């Protein structure tokens, strides 16, 4: 068993990431905070372009550079600052301490390498084993994710989408990482396979006591497997809490908007209420609260000042001018 130096498996504080392109500076992350306790799962929820994948890639320090630059902030893996690591040291952390499952299994595997070679590569790099032992372990990993070991000799094009995602998961889990970043692992899969893959991930995570960052825009998945939830908007967490905080004591208007845009099973005739407008252009963010232009409750102050964190309890916080220390405990938004 690992000895944990810090309470948190991963602890990101005040992270700023920019993509400096010819057309302007895209501010992808603007003071991102994220903490996951050992063995827990955090759901990172937000729209396309909110900075979810950038957060995941930042942890691995795999932001495409150029144009991506980590401008400031800290990323600590079990208390150790990843920002100070050299590229070589990161090579020893990637795949061993932190693994990532990517969104699209169709393109995430190398088409000219056999599946077992791709799993074994990670094992060979991080564990002192021979090539044949690595291949053997790779086959065991395949069995673990529900694929017969002898199919390891095949190439990715011989597998279906769901099977490919299982292979990607096997690669990610091959060296038993302490942190698993899952970037929309089921988005590209059809619904029946989604449930299978999620169930499998949940089991494997519990088996190895892995912490997990679940990047998704599906609140159903969050309710299913996450312990805590961070709602991200324009590169910043706007609301964070455990499942009960977020689902039962929703505070932020954006979070509320996300729930309202889900179909209501009890009243199927009810119209969906989408959040009006689009995400602000990350190359040209508003001066005040980033959500202000789309917010039904926007006030004058929202246009000019960025909201600070207001805590409802030890874990649950929200960044919104609607709240202060006095009213944060009170009921839901619509009662206001």
């Amino acid at each position, binding site marked *: 068993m690992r000895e944990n130096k810090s309470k948190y498996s991963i602890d990101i504080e005040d992270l700023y990431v920019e993509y400096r392109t010819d057309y302007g500076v895209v501010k992808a992350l603007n003071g991102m905070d994220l903490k996951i306790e050992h063995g827990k799962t955090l759901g990172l929820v937000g729209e396309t372009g909110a900075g979810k994948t950038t957060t995941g890639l930042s942890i691995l320090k795999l932001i495409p550079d150029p144009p991506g630059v980590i401008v400031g902030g800290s990323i600590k893996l079990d208390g150790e600052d990843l920002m100070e690591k050299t590229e070589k040291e*990161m*090579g020893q*952390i*990637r*795949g061993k301490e932190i693994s990532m499952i*990517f969104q699209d299994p169709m393109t*995430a595997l190398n*088409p000219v390498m056999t599946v077992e070679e*791709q799993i074994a590569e990670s094992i060979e790099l991080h564990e002192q084993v021979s090539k044949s032992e690595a291949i053997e372990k790779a086959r065991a990993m395949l069995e673990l994710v529900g694929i017969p070991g002898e199919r390891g000799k095949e*190439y990715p094009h011989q597998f279906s989408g769901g099977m490919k995602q299982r292979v990607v998961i096997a690669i990610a889990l091959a060296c038993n990482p302490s942190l698993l970043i899952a970037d929309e692992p089921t988005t590209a899969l059809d619904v029946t396979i989604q449930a299978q893959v999620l169930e499998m991930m949940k089991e494997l995570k519990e088996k190895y006591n892995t912490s997990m960052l679940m990047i998704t825009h599906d609140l159903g998945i969050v309710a299913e497997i996450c312990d805590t939830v961070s709602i991200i908007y324009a590169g910043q967490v706007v609301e964070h809490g455990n499942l009960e905080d977020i689902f039962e004591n929703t505070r932020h208007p954006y979070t509320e908007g996300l729930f309202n845009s889900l179909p209501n099973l009890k009243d199927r005739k009810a119209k969906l209420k989408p959040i009006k407008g689009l995400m602000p252009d990350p190359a040209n963010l508003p001066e005040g609260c980033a959500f202000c232009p789309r917010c039904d409750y926007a006030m004058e102050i929202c246009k000019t000042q960025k909201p600070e964190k207001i805590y409802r309890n030890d874990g649950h916080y929200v960044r919104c001018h609607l709240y202060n220390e006095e009213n944060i405990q009170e009921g839901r938004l619509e009662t206001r």
Partner: protein
Amino acid sequence: MIKYVVKRLLALIPVIIGVTMLVFFILKSAPGDPVRLILGEQATPEQVAELTEQMGLDQPLLVQYVKYMIGLVQGDLGIAYSTRRPVADEVFSRFPYTLKLSLVATVVSIALAIPLGIIAAVKQNTVIDNVSMFVALIGISMPMFWLALLLMLLFSLKLGWFPVSGAASWQSYILPAFALGFMNMASTARTTRSSMLETIRQDYIRTARSKGVSNSVVIRKHAFKNALIPTITVCGLQIGSLLGGSVLCETVFAWPGIGRLMVQAISARDVPMVLGCTVIFTICFSIVNLLVDLLYGFVDPRIKSMYS
């Protein structure tokens, strides 16, 4: 796999029929009488008529063509008009020179182009990238015969390092091979660079890096083999232009290959000789293409599965 190869080789038959037919009728419809060229302006009409009949040129074109094809099937390439000797003797004594020159040019150009393309891609937008792509641009833009003449002027006449022409020693290979291979090198390098650039942006490269694979291994092990597929296509096409290039190159350097033989035969209206050279070129080109297609299978398992 074997079935595929046999199928491809059988497909060569209609190709040869088509090519010979085209060349035969185009040459026959060109002005100029081979008999007149052999006998000269002073020959009497009787002499001309006699030789015309002797060479079978008085018969209808279609009959001449069919007779030629019947010979070809039996491995007989006919008798050259100009030398009155069997075409096969001449063609096969010259062919090894062309083959050797083309091989040297291809090997050298690929061996230089692929590393150059990879370095340019990995060091994208640096001085190395810009310089190598500028050299490649020159290579693509410069006509081969002009490059050949410049090389000859500088290295043979001014500096005296290499022989001006002929194929007497290994030194005499250098200038023609360089002239012939330079354009191929340039376009192969550019293709390698762009396919490499595209490959290193693929998701599976990110997957490899997320496993902790170092940058150089990612390039060598993951990116290179994937980037190779478009490169092979271009190399295959290049070998076709190499055959065309050999005609020019051999003429400039007085290389004793079949490219030059063909040019001489065309000016002499020597139809059997031109046809003989064409048949050899056609077979070479088809075999090279077949080899390239088989090579795909070795590189890309997705293509290999289609061959079986």
